[in-house]
């Protein structure tokens, strides 16, 4: 692998930052240079969150250029659309099929985009778009907070790291109590995306 540029995005509280931390740590374990950077704004919860993760033999800028993202991993649909223009042509978008309408939408000031609008934005660059039911799967597993590891599982087949590296990093980043369920969520995501005929 020459380089891999990845955006992980979602809404504050969905576990975006832990996910990008794990990806960067896994990159080191796989012998790569890496940088990651988050933009979280000023809120504790509920704002847009975006993580840039860059992997390669030598990484300079922590920020990815527009049009160079290989994989866009989005935990929410509006956030997927917001960063669609960062995808490179023939990039991959993996989107959790979840709409979290911002307050402005509830107040009737703005509109939440339709699925078609989102897909149209992503299609302009991506040639593979996966809309996955991550929140549903996480609920089925018994803990909605495993969404991020499910989504990471979905992205993992596109990142050439050994499965043991992922498992080690997930284990190291999560406390005992929720380790197993998160490993299961990862496994489930990995399987689900494989069945989606990649």
């Amino acid at each position: 692998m020459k380089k891999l540029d990845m955006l992980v995005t979602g809404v504050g509280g969905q576990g975006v930052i832990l996910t990008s931390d794990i990806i960067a740590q896994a990159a080191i374990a796989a012998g790569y240079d890496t940088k990651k950077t988050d933009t979280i704004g000023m809120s504790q919860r509920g704002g847009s969150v975006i993580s840039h993760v860059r992997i390669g033999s030598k990484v300079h800028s922590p920020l990815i250029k527009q049009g160079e993202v290989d994989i866009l991993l989005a935990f929410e649909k509006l956030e997927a659309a917001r960063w669609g223009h960062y995808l490179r042509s023939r990039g991959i978008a993996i989107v959790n099929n979840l709409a979290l309408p911002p307050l402005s939408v509830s107040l009737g000031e703005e509109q939440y985009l339709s699925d078609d609008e989102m897909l149209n934005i992503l299609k302009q660059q991506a040639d593979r778009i996966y809309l996955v039911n991550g929140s549903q799967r996480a609920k089925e597993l018994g803990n909605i907070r495993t969404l991020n590891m499910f989504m990471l599982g979905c992205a993992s087949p596109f990142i050439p790291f050994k499965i043991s590296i992922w498992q080690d990093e997930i284990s190291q980043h999560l406390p005992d109590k929720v380790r197993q369920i998160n490993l299961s969520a990862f496994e489930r995501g990995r399987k689900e995306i494989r069945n989606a005929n990649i």
Partner: protein
Amino acid sequence: MIKLLSGNEALALGAYHAGVKVAAAYPGTPSTEILESLADYDDVYAEWSTNEQAAMEVALGAAYAGVRAMVSLKQVGLNVASDAFMAAATTGVSAGMVVVCADDPGIHSSQNEQDSRHYVKLAKVPMLEPADSQEAYEFMAYAFDISEKFDTPVLVRTTTRISHSKSVVKVDRTRAVPASQAVFQHNVAKYVMLPAYARLRHQLVEERLVKLADFSETFPSNHILRGEHRLGVVTSGVSYQYAIDALPQASFLKLGMTYPLPQNLLRQFAAQVDKLVVIEELDPFLQENIQAMGIKVSGKEFIPRAGELNPDIIEQASRSAGWLPKAPAREKIGITTELAKRPPLLCPGCPHSGIFFVLSSIGQRSKLSGSKGKPSKESKLIITGDIGCYTLGAYPPLLALDTTACMGASIGLALGMEKAGVSSKVVAVIGDSTFMHAGITGLVNAVYNSGRITLIILDNGTTAMTGHQDHPGTGISAQGKETTKVELESLVRGIGVSNVRVVDAFNLKALRASVRSSLDSTELSVIIVRGSCSMLVPKRSGPRVIDNEKCNQCDVCLLIGCPAIQSDSERITIDTALCVGDICTICQQLCPRQAISRQSETGAEELA
């Protein structure tokens, strides 16, 4: 050992390995994690100071007493600490003293976008600018050494992008602390800045700067990377990383020490290249200093002064400047839909929501849906705000703040408006941590000068916005030790305020009554609105639900701005996963049709 560290973690580890003994800070994005990381070490004394000036003085005292000390702060924190910083620059130190200042280009979480590099010119102290976590780690050791060698505080300047990016660090040292005990060497001419002694010190400061300029020529992280001679780029910090991605063919002079500048090295580099340019974020600090040497250089003619840089901006600027050949513009992604914004919000169960709702309604400011974002011009209230999560109360639907300037300004601004003779009542709103930081002096001033303002202290028992740090009002130190708790009510009464009320942040009726009574009062009054930050409440129970039979969609509950309350054209619902339940109930107290109630246990089961 290889580690993935944020810039802030690397700065802390670098300082630890360089033998820092005393570290002080006030939380401020993007610098907060530096002290948090240092607080984990038992063999470092780490404190949350009341404010940055106190932090600077504590570090300076420790450095006078012969132990390595540091301060970490954000750009506006350096403003607060500037008096002490200038003093440190004048007296010098005994053991090393390092000031880490984290600027916030792009204003991710600040009230301004200042370029703090100007401070080193004012103070005549050296500055280092790391370009990644590896340099952040290494530069702390250099900084302490330079501080001791040249008898000066050293500024290590980072930015949000350096402080909050994680990159690979080779950790090749362990902690080295000199065995000597802390000793203060009495030296009146050095430490007592009477005019006669200060004049002598000024001479030494000027001599020091000349020596530092010589040292800068040999500083190992000021180095030339030879590429094509057509273009030479002088750069530092994160701008270096963007520039080398955007201009991989160019020659670079990458500066790690950016004040004083290495004049000979710059001339040597300028002579090697056809065209010399500076790529730097915010102000033309390097550019102007290089131009002052009589070297021809450009940069800010093409690179924006405002906002955070990124590789796209550098590439675009390089093309319009002719540093890169023109390229066919990439097709822009057509976005036909205007995407809904997702600004930061007060959290569900935030103890600030209730009081802001009350202020907004008493001031006749809040508006129902469809109205765009500005408070009514005829509002009966002027509400001066301050710095913290509660600054978000300015957004719709609350529209409950008219000003946010700097730490503590709410009180002074309110008094100033009152003394100017405005006809509206003036209310100042400030958080507990901010009040401790910079509000006390303003309140003393308002009491002394017979102000009649209403001061509302939002006491959520933490410094929430920066990630829940303790402060004097919590009675817990940065290293988790129990200490003396400074009680807000006794503090306020001690200042001389007799009209002091403490009100439950989640009791709308009591909040409304106390605000009304304060506004009617002819004396200065203080309302302490007390309620824990909802993120610190471990157990949640009894989420609220809306009975859609009773609800007539009057939308009043939406005016709280609670993210758990969601509405579409059909109905209003509460997201029970977000609702904090029993501790809040603001929406339930507000609903005119009693359509909101505690979710029944059976209902909960049904939903599950």
